[in-house]
């Protein structure tokens, strides 16, 4: 049994054990796993027949058919392989806001998803956007890796800001393997999130974007005349809070999330807006289940 950790409570773990990561695409795995692969291979599940060509493994010949038809026919079986499951966390300073902070929430969510992957013997790799292009995170695999996974996630702290596009680009360059990528970010990049998401599309991964916003961002409780300072680039904005301003903020926020959702949907990316007040259980069991990441 995995060590109890603040990231994952026992109740959550029992729930998560029943789930698995689902991908709508089939990818090639590296090792024997529990998922069907594009490759034909050696499993118990029959897939197809084909004519024998020289060089084929003789062990795969269907001798019964040869006796009946006098033809060499090879029997193909479905190959079951493991799945590449990438968790990409935005650990910029902007994520370190909220109660609980968005980063903490993201860590918890990542731990939960990684646990599901590990339990189902998927190849789980957890990375952050700020990681240098040469620095790769270890691949975790199997239930025994849960403690390592937890330690790795717990070690994630708010780091210097890398633009979303650069972070994703580095991630794609580092990891050539196809698989499922879950990006947990607030998408608050002044250069926009579009470039970053296009990288995923180009990389042909099954991408999930969990757009994580804090309650303070969804419904800011600000008053008076304020000088807003961006924690990342120390950019400033002067506002005088008024009801119309707040209403306008709500409209802008709604437009922002709506655009992001639409952008993702058009490109086959699953989008989920989450806020830090939502419980992990609820998020995983309902919203991610609804969107087909887990089942």
């Amino acid at each position, binding site marked *: 049994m995995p060590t109890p950790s603040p990231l994952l409570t026992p109740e959550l773990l029992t729930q998560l054990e029943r789930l698995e990561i689902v991908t709508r695409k089939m990818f090639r795995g590296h090792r024997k796993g529990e998922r069907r692969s594009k490759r034909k291979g050696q499993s118990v599940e029959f897939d197809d027949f084909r004519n024998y060509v020289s060089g084929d493994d003789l062990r795969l010949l269907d001798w019964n058919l040869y006796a009946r038809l006098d033809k060499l026919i090879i029997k193909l079986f479905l190959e079951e392989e493991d799945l590449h499951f990438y968790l990409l966390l935005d650990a910029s300073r902007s994520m370190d806001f*909220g109660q609980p902070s968005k980063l903490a929430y993201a860590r918890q969510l990542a731990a939960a998803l990684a646990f599901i992957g590990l339990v189902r013997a998927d190849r789980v790799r957890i990375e952050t956007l700020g990681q240098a292009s040469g620095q790769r995170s270890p691949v975790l695999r199997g239930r025994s890796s849960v403690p390592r996974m937890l330690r790795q996630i717990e070690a994630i702290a708010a780091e210097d800001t890398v633009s979303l596009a650069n972070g994703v680009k580095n991630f794609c360059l580092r990891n050539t393997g196809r698989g499922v990528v879950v990006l947990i970010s607030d998408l608050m990049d002044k250069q926009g999130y579009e470039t970053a998401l296009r990288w995923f599309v180009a990389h042909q991964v099954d991408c999930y974007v969990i757009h994580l916003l804090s309650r303070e961002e969804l419904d800011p409780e600000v008053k008076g005349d304020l000088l807003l300072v*961006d924690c990342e680039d120390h950019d400033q904005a002067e506002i005088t809070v008024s009801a119309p301003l707040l209403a306008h903020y709500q409209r802008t926020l709604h437009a922002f999330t709506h655009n992001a959702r639409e952008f993702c949907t058009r490109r086959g990316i699953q989008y989920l807006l989450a806020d830090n007040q939502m419980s992990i259980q609820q998020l995983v069991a309902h919203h991610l289940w609804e969107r087909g990441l887990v089942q």
Partner: protein
Amino acid sequence: MDSLIYNTLSPWQWALMGLIPPALIALYFLKLKRQPLEVPSTYLWHRVVEDLHVNSLWQKLRRSLLLFLQLLVIFLALLALLRPGWQVDALVGERFIFLIDNSASMSATDVRDPDLNGGLLTATTNPASSRLNLAKQHVAAMIDHMTSRMSAMIITFAEQTQVVQQFTSNRKKLRAALQRIKPSAGRTHLGDALELASGFANPERITSEEDGREYEVTDPSPVDLVILSDGCFEAVRGFSLGNLRPQFLPIGSVKALNLAITGLSVRPGENRPERRQVFVQVANFSDQAQRTVVDLTLNGELVDAAELEIAADDISGITFSLGEISEAALRARLEIPPSLADRLQLDNTAYAALNPDRVGRVLLVTPGNPPVELALATQQVGHWAVVEKRSPELLESLEFQQLAESDTYDLMIFDRCVPPRMPLANTLLIGRIPTVPQWQKKSSDRIHFLPQIVDWQRAHPLLNLVELGNVRIADTRIVNPPPGGKILVDSSQGPILAIAGRDPYEDVVLGFEIVGRGTDGQPIMNTNWPRRLSFPNFWLNVIQYLASGTMRQDSPVHQPGESLELPRTIFGNGPYAGSPAKDSKLAEQERADQGKLKNLAVILPDGTQQALSPPQHGVYAFHDTFLPGIYEVRAGNKRLYRFAVNLLDPNESDIRLHTHSLGESGLRRVDSISIGYVDIAAQTQTVASRRELWKWLLLAVLVVLMVEWYIFNRRVYV
């Protein structure tokens, strides 16, 4: 001050004020102290602010509630500086005295008459309402406008001044007091009311004398004196208003028509004194000739009537002859045709009372004076008085002391003798000065020879029809009356006939003897007067004036509200006409009358009976003469005396507001009333004042400031 705003600032001050709002807006934009707040990202906020910037500056202003509130505060403050306000019928001041005229003329019902330029305060109620009701309405309106810090008192003035309500700020009390005011039939005496008001206005006026100069110690508090009257009275002289700030609200109209009886007298007939004549004087206070009928009723029965035509603003008289009547209640009444809008009913009726004739008793104390005795023995004199003659020895006797104290006689004539003490009667001294110090102080017993008569008071009743130009006098004493006395005959040597009061009697002193005594002790004539026609006339006058009351007061007439003294003689200490006092039956009757004097009462014209209070200093006084009509003095069931109370005052009956023309414009304006040396202009409006808003505006400023503070602290979003 009747415009909507009242500018209090000069243009450059306004320029400074005008800079405040732009400065405020500038400060609002320059407001640098924003509270820094670290946020995850300004990404969305920037987009919000950029969008708002697109919406122009104005929108930002519009949505800034705090700025709006601050501007509102500035605006309200500026507005307060403009002192907006309007004219209202309100009171300005703290203490008020409402002087309400309730004299006879205020009963006029002309409040709905057409009027000239706003002289009249128009009434809103029924047309039958009187001027007094209108005045009460206006005072009620002013009371309604009183604030809690104001106090007021109400005084009515007519013949008598009455404080209806002392100073109070209780409006309920004031209204109740107002309701108590009743019209009276008296004349208008503003002076008394002003004295009273002045006394109430400065109750603690104290002066202290330092270095021979007077300083007022207490600060006098000003009092607003509101006089509501029709101005039907004489100007008030010799009154200083002091702290009183008078306002005069004229009530009435300038065209009010009125016919009035302004005179009613009953006189003995010229040829036959026992026959009476009634003289009625009627005045027409309108600008057109009027015809009217005068009725005369005697004891309730019509005895005569006559038609009378009176020119505009004129008076006319008519004489009715009555028979030999000795006791009667007369009423003269104007029959006003219904077409004539007579606005004052009160003066259309006048009353007169005739009392039974009474013969005076005269005691002549003389050592012998044939001319005087002869003059007092005429038939005419006998009609008025019974003359008894005694010698001067009487003066030394105990009997005289009793007589002097009993007021048995109406007149005592002392010829060449002086009573040791003045009796309770009118006296006439011939050739001697009374022993009273007041007389002695100024006169002396020194004899002056051959005085020439220079002047005499022809108007005095004693010298009525007395010609003294041809009278020679050998010697005389000079008589100087005490203060309050009057010199009747003046000679080249000094006064030789004088009269002076000695309450309630009068003393007449004739300086020269008529019959003197020569050195040989023989009587000699000191003057040729007895041979002149004026001599019997004088003695007749003496008897009429001193022995039977003031010029034979057959029909005593008093003004409404006047306090009067009832003649002593009516209470039975004198013989009745035609029956000498020696008559034993009559004497018994007199004694019976004396016994009944305990139940003295006065029957008022409205039938009510009022007990007569006991006499003070031998005088019966009666005050409750507010109703015009005939009053009866009764002792038990016996009628002792009747007197009439009448208005008979042209000033009161001329109920038109007095006006004067305003230049060539043809406008007319109600005359001001004059008090002391101050003319108080008539106000055409009710007491109007300016009600200003600036206090409320400043209050609103405070409220807005509080709201702004609340919003600033609580961050109320709008």
